[in-house]
């Protein structure tokens, strides 16, 4: 029988993979997608615990996480486009204007 622990371990695995991707990839869009993956693993934890505890609040939280993720996608991709227009590249190694 599948318990809430199975879902939480799965969410932990997905979160760790997302962390790995954020730390290792060069491409900004792939890093962005890995952040979405981490948000989704947290959503899975919220819904599994909400179901387990018999409480609706976790699912409302997931709704707001999705709202913030949509806003983040819009603003973040606009930033990536503006950066690409200046540097002709989206590697994170080129984000170095504040470096000294």
């Amino acid at each position, binding site marked *: 029988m599948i318990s809430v622990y199975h879902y939480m371990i799965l969410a932990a695995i997905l979160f760790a993979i997302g962390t790995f991707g954020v730390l290792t990839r*060069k491409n900004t869009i792939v890093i962005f997608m890995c952040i979405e993956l981490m948000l989704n693993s947290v959503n899975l934890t919220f819904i599994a615990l909400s179901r387990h505890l018999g409480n609706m609040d976790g699912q409302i939280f997931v709704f707001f996480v999705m709202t913030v993720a949509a806003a983040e996608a819009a603003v973040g991709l606009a930033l990536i486009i503006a950066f690409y227009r200046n540097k002709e590249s989206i590697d994170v190694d080129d984000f170095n204007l504040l470096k000294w």
Partner: protein
Amino acid sequence: MEALLFYLVALVAVLSAFFVTKCRNTVNSALCLVTTFLCLAVYYVMLEAPFMAAIQIMVYAGAIMVLIVFVIMLLNIGSVGKSVYRHGLIWATGLGFLIFLIAAKFIAGGTVTKKVGTVTSEVVKDYGHTELIGTAMFTEFLLPFEIASILLLVAIVGAVILSKRKV
């Protein structure tokens, strides 16, 4: 049967999540991420949250991924050269594994209590999941709902201003 479905979908979800970080071509990464989102939607259905599964597919796999794929196509990135990864592959693997271990330790050590709330399987079946969500959102969580609408408006304006040619 339920356990078999769980492990099968978990395998697909973890593999496609891994290939998000592994693929050279950015479009392939995006498609793998869509697969992960669909697997999570299956889990939401298994957890008796069909409304959440629907908006997972429509908002995440639909809207957000279309936006990402649109930007990938617009910038014409395609596949990159030899060095996909930045330095520090070993350290990142270790850190990711450490995060997983810490989370697993918390999950194994914590005691999740039994059902204390009122939303049981029968209530979801009687009232319908969407109605429960709507009732909670427009009574108890009305203020956060309105703040979320303002957040989306600000994000739209910000995105338009950021991607204008002359800032």
